[in-house]
Every structure is written in C-alpha cells, then in structure tokens.
C-alpha cells in the first residue's frame, strides 16, 4: 500500500528539544484556549481531532482506508447517550459503554472487510457502515430521525459537575490527551512495528509468518474503539446523538480531516480537524454551501498536496531544520 506518503514520526536522533518545546507550547495552548475561544467549539474540535487521530491509526499506520468509520463514531454516541440517559450511568461508565460498543462493531465490520484489500476494503466498509446507518434509522433505542436528545452530562466520578462548561472542557481535554497518548503508544510499540511492516510490504510480512489478517483486525478494532471514545464524549458535549454521526458523509469528513492534516503524522489530524470544523462553523452562517468547499478541498488535496499541512511542514526547509524531516 503506497497511500501513506512515507511521512513518519520526526527522526529520533534530531533535536528532541525542539519537539518538546512544540509539545509543551501545544499543551499550554490547549489548557489556556477556553480563555480566548468558545468552549463548546473547542470541545467539538477536540472530539473530531481525536476521531481523526484514531482513524489515522488505521489509514496512516496500517495503510487501511476505511470508508465506514462513522459507524463507530456515531454508534458510540448512541451507546453512550443511551447508557447515560436511559440506564442512568455516570459519564465515565457511559463512555466506556460507547467504547466497548464501537469495538464490538469494529470487530464485526472488520472481520468481513479484511477479507478484501485496497479499494474493495474501502467499498465494503462503506457499504457495511451504510447498513448500520439504516439499522440506526429503524432501531427503537436510537429514536430514529429525532435522535437521543437532552442527554445529561452528569457528574464525573460522582462529584465533578460536567454541566459547567469549564469542567466539561478540561474533561474532554483529558480524554483527548489520553486518547492520543494511547495512539502514540500503539504506534511506537512492537505491535506498531508489525503494523508498519504490513503497510510497507504485506506479502513479506506474510512470508515471515505473520497472520496479517489478525493484525489488521486488531488495528481495526483498536481504531474503532478509540473512535468510539471520541464519539461517546461528543454525545456528552452536545448532549445528544443523531443520525448525522453515522452517515457516510461523516466517514468522508474524517478522511478529509486526516488527508488535509497529513496522513501518517501524529498531530496532522488535529490540524485537519481544526480546519474542517472551523470552516463548517464559519460557512454555516454564510450563503455558500459547505459541501462544495469540502469537495473542492478534497480534490485539491489529492491532486496537489497529498502530504497534508503537517506533512508539508515536516518536509519544508523550516521543518527539516527543526528536525521534523520525514524519512524519505
């Protein structure tokens, strides 16, 4: 699979200080952001950023293009919303339900989809996710077109009131950081190394005795579970779960975020998500329909800068100087 553009984590021997500074500055920015920006907007951004990062675990680091990730995102939103609203679970357990549900869904869809490769894989995930969409449309617990509404945010660990938007923001930020840390750990683990080897040369990995299917399925389920984390949190932020989050347009959106930010870069999807979410927010109050812009950005990205924003930066002169140069 050559979809990933050989962009990788910044090389390890180059100045780690620069990266530490960047990381610290980024964290500080996120901690202070609610002072300058509208918290709900920031929370939405973080949810989508985590979604895109989880998606990128599959596309960027395993080389699998899933066109059905909305099923996990929206599915988890439904599961969490239902668990919190109908069963009265506290938020942390509600999110856990969402994550487990998404992982389970990922296991089923993944099991079927990994039987084919490349384009077929993409089409099958798309079709299966669409099937899940129709399921959600008709299932009782999703409340059809209305969605599950007025989901209480509840109290985290029983005492932190999440209806306060500041509390909620730092909770979302915490989940985001944990999620990204998990992804980072997976990528930089012995398992991650095998994923990478599958991406680089699947046949060789098979000939070395790796049951490539199982690895792909494992990566698929992990990506689905982390996507579920993002979806579950989103349901609490907006206090509802709707069909929007399981529609195929949502699957397209997360691909766009990842592509725009930089496939196979850890923080690229964060930038991609930021841009897309901002764009949507801005265009919602303008005359121009958002789909045209989305479509055009897609085309331009694919034709002109497949590395994405962060990938292009890593590859630029400044990026190289700072030690972010990609390997080949």
């Amino acid at each position, binding site marked *: 699979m050559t979809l990933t553009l050989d962009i990788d984590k910044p090389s390890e021997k180059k100045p780690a200080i620069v990266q530490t500074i960047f990381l610290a500055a980024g964290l500080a920015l996120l901690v202070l952001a609610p002072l300058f920006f509208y918290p709900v907007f920031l929370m939405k951004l973080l949810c989508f950023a985590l979604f895109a990062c989880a998606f990128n675990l599959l596309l960027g680091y395993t080389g699998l293009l899933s066109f059905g990730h909305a099923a996990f995102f929206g599915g988890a939103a439904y599961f969490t919303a239902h668990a919190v609203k109908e069963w009265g679970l506290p938020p942390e357990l509600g999110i856990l339900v969402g994550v487990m549900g998404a992982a389970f869904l990922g296991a089923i869809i993944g099991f079927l989809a990994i039987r084919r490769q490349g384009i077929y894989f993409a089409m099958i995930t798309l079709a299966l996710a669409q099937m899940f969409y129709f399921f959600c449309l008709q299932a009782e617990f999703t409340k059809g077109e209305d969605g599950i509404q007025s989901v209480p945010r509840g109290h985290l660990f029983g005492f932190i009131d999440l209806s306060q938007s500041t509390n909620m923001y730092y909770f979302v930020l915490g989940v985001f950081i944990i999620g990204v840390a998990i992804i980072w*750990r*997976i990528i930089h*683990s012995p398992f991650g*190394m095998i994923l990478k080897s599958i991406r680089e*040369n699947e*046949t060789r990995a098979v000939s*070395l005795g*790796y049951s490539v299917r199982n690895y792909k399925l494992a990566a698929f389920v992990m990506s689905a579970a982390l996507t579920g984390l993002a979806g579950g949190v989103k349901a609490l932020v907006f206090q509802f779960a709707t069909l929007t989050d399981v529609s195929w347009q949502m699957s397209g959106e997360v691909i766009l975020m990842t592509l725009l930010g930089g496939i196979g870069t850890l923080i690229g999807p964060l930038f991609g998500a930021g841009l897309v979410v901002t764009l949507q927010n801005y265009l919602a109050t303008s005359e121009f329909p958002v789909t045209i812009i989305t479509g055009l950005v897609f085309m331009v990205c694919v034709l002109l800068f497949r590395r994405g924003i962060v990938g292009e930066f890593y590859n630029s002169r400044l990026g190289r100087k700072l030690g972010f140069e990609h390997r*080949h």
Partner: protein
Amino acid sequence: MTAALKEQNGAPRVVLSARGLRRDFGGFTAVNNVNLDVHDARVHALIGPNGAGKTTVFNLLTKFLQPTGGTITLLGEDITRMAPDKVARMGLVRSFQISAVFPHMSVLDNVRVALQRPNGLATQFWKPMSALDGLTAKADHLIRSVGLDKERNAVAADLSYGRKRVLEIATTLALEPKVLLLDEPMAGMGHEDVGMVAEIIREVALKRAVLMVEHNLSVVSTLCHHVTVLQRGEILAEGDYAEVSADPRVRTAYMGTEEV
C-alpha cells in the same frame, strides 16, 4: 519413491515434497504435474528458461497461490490447503524475486521485525519500543554474519540492490527456518556479494533444506546437490548437476540463451 524412502531411513530425509502439482490461470496451465522432493541438509536448485514456471512453483509451495491440483507435504504434514502465514510459522520461509524488505525501516528494524515473531512480542501494543532491546544482540549477530554491520542504522530503501538482497536473506534466517526457499538470491548482485551469499547458503544448508531458483549456473554447479529443470511448467530433467547438464534436452532448452 523407493529412493526417497531409503533416504528417509538414512541421513537426509525429505522435508518438503510436492506430488502432481498443477496450477491453471484461466485456460493456461502454468504448472503441470510437478513432483518435487526437497531434502534436509541439501541445496536443491530449480532452474529453467524464463517463463518456465519456477516462481509459480515457489508461490504454490509457500501457499501464496492455491494449487489447482496435487498435494504438498511439509515435515510429514499435508499443507495443500493451509494459509501462507501458517506455513511460514511451520518453518517454511521464502525470499522473493524482487527484493522484499521493509523500505522505510532501518536494517536493524528489518531484522527485528522477523525476530519478534517467535517470542510473542509482536502482539504487545502496550509496550514501548525498548521492549525489543533484548533482540538487538541477536539481530546484530545476524547483521554481522551477512556483513551488513556498516549499514546497521541505514534505512533499507537506501541500500544498493545487492545489499537489499543480503538483508532479505538475513531476515529470512532470523526465523531459523527448517526449509528455505530462495527466489534468485544472487540476481543483480556484485561479484563479492555473490561469493559471500553462496558461502552463507552453504553454511545454512548444513542444518536445513534449501530450495533455490537460480540463473547463475556456476553457483548452481558449485553449491547445489540436486537440480530440477523446469520447462513450460513441467519437469524436463532431474539429477545432480553433471547428469542434468549432460542431458541433451536440457541443452536444447537452454541453447541460445545460456551456455551450459
């Protein structure tokens, strides 16, 4: 058959065998009725003109392709319907005609990918990369034994073609296979590499079976105990190098292409 039985009682036993192997692509039969016995501690060469079906036979034996007919036995077990990765785990490991390395990984990591498989590290997604440190010594040993120590930290894609082939052999050996299938291991190599790789293969074959496709007939003549000649998907001749090269049909098949 009797010969094979006798050998099984004596020193070199048959570890990999194919009976009546056949593969069709649409209406075209690429491999037809191939019987093959690969012996332990022997180097077995598979030669033949281009398009004779050598690589197809390799793909069939390693299960990357499903045979249309026939059976394959590995270490006494029928593997005709087995998945390729399972076959590899049983100890049948192959290299590829076009060098198969993980291009954006370092030489060290290429070898470590192979080394982690038998000890279960590969599934540990929660451990840091330093969990692999225990494998480094063994990896370095392998790298040194194939003469890649200078390139240890280089990225595989940066290696010359010949060096990539060497690296591929190193990763293959890292799995300590029982049967080694090498698809043109010497193709595109410089002279000194050819000598070194031949030496590695000779040493490796002391303890395991090697089946190789090779065009370099001088290598075949010095290295291989047994030669099978393939033409248009069928076996043309079999025997040791002297017998085979004396066969007039083989001479005809090779005439104009290579000096026998």
